[in-house]
Every structure is written in structure tokens, then in C-alpha cells.
């Protein structure tokens, strides 16, 4: 099956710093989503981004489907950005979402 690897696995930053999270996938995909899982376990949709670039406030994402990777940028980090970030992909011809390994982000005041 498809492999979805995220890096780095853990990231600790000071408030105000910028960060880049990476998602690599091993096969062609119909879709890629980025989620933020908050400390209470809730999964929050950040981006639906099968290709191209999107921005939402301090967050932006870029997916290069032909090279099988996606990047999530977080600027001017806040403590509320802490949590685990997951990418997840729908594989072509397979009607299910496969999650990446996750990046745990900790923002220190």
C-alpha cells in the first residue's frame, strides 16, 4: 500500500517562529488533506489541497503532486498552534483516506 511519511516527527519552537512541515507519499493521489489535532483529540481540517498552493491566514500549503510531496507552512507561531499535524491522502482507485505519520509541534511561550 501507499506510504505517507511526515517530517520532522517532532518540532519545538518559540512563539513567533516560522515552521515548515513536510509530507511525502509514495503513489499517485486524488487528494491530500492537512489536519491539526488539538490536545483534546479533535481533528480540524486545515487544507484540502490535491495540487497547487492555498493560504489561510498564517497557514499556507503547497502540494506538488508530480513529485509526491506537500508542505505546510506556519508563520508567526502561537501557543494554540501546538498539537499534532497530519497529512492524509486518497490513493487513485482506492476509496479510503490514508494518514501520514504525523508531526508533533510544540510552541513555547
Amino acid at each position, binding site marked *: 500500500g501507499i506510504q505517507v511519511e511526515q517530517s520532522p516527527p517532532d518540532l519545538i519552537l518559540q512563539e513567533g517562529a516560522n515552521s515548515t512541515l513536510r509530507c511525502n507519499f509514495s503513489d499517485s493521489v*486524488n*487528494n491530500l*488533506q492537512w*489536519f491539526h489535532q488539538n490536545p*483534546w*483529540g*479533535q*481533528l480540524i*481540517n486545515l487544507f*484540502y489541497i*490535491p495540487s497547487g498552493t492555498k493560504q489561510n491566514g498564517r497557514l499556507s500549503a503547497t502540494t506538488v503532486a508530480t513529485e509526491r510531496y506537500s508542505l505546510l507552512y506556519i508563520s508567526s507561531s502561537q501557543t494554540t498552534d501546538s498539537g499534532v499535524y*497530519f497529512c*492524509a491522502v*486518497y490513493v487513485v482507485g482506492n*476509496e*479510503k*483516506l*490514508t*494518514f*501520514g*505519520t*504525523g508531526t508533533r509541534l510544540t510552541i513555547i511561550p
Partner: protein
Amino acid sequence: SAVISQKPSRDICQRGTSLTIQCQVDSQVTMMFWYRQQPGQSLTLIATANQGSEATYESGFVIDKFPISRPNLTFSTLTVSNMSPEDSSIYLCSVEGPVRYEQYFGPGTRLTVT
């Protein structure tokens, strides 16, 4: 996007018992999905539930352990049967949104088995 609720939000259960988790969506959806997230791990799909048919289980998950019901287009249940401490996880349901291949998740059920 769909609004999804789950009950219970958390529970502590004794080994050998069963727990049924409910998932309610505010709109009619064709497919509902159940995921498990073990402590410190990523999410793993348990099964896909279509209304009016048997759920489709992923490798490593069986109906006897995780029976699923899908009585209508807005509701589903997942039962975790004969629980052991290894079943301690967050269980989440999800649905596909108005955009194909985009999924939305319920708040999750945090289960602890003692």
C-alpha cells in the same frame, strides 16, 4: 461541511465488556468511516459503512470484534467487543464532505480499558 457528533465523548471500561459508540451527522451521507487512533499513533481506518449493506473492514479488523451498524443515512454505531487494555484508543467517525475525497471528522471517543 457536515457537523458530526459522537457519543460518548469518553469512557472508562472494564476488560471483557463492550462499548457502543454512536456517530450522528447533520446531513445525509452515503459513506461513513470509522478510525482508531492508538496512543501516540496515527489514525488507522477500521471500516467503511454504507447504508443498507455490510460494512467493509480493513485488514486486521474483524466484524466480531468491531460490529458496525448503519441503519440510515445520518447515523452509525461502532461496538468495541470483549475489550482488553490494548483497545484503549480514540475512536473517530468521519464522512465525506460536499467535495469528493474531502473528509470531516467527529470529535472522537476516548476509550480507556482497565
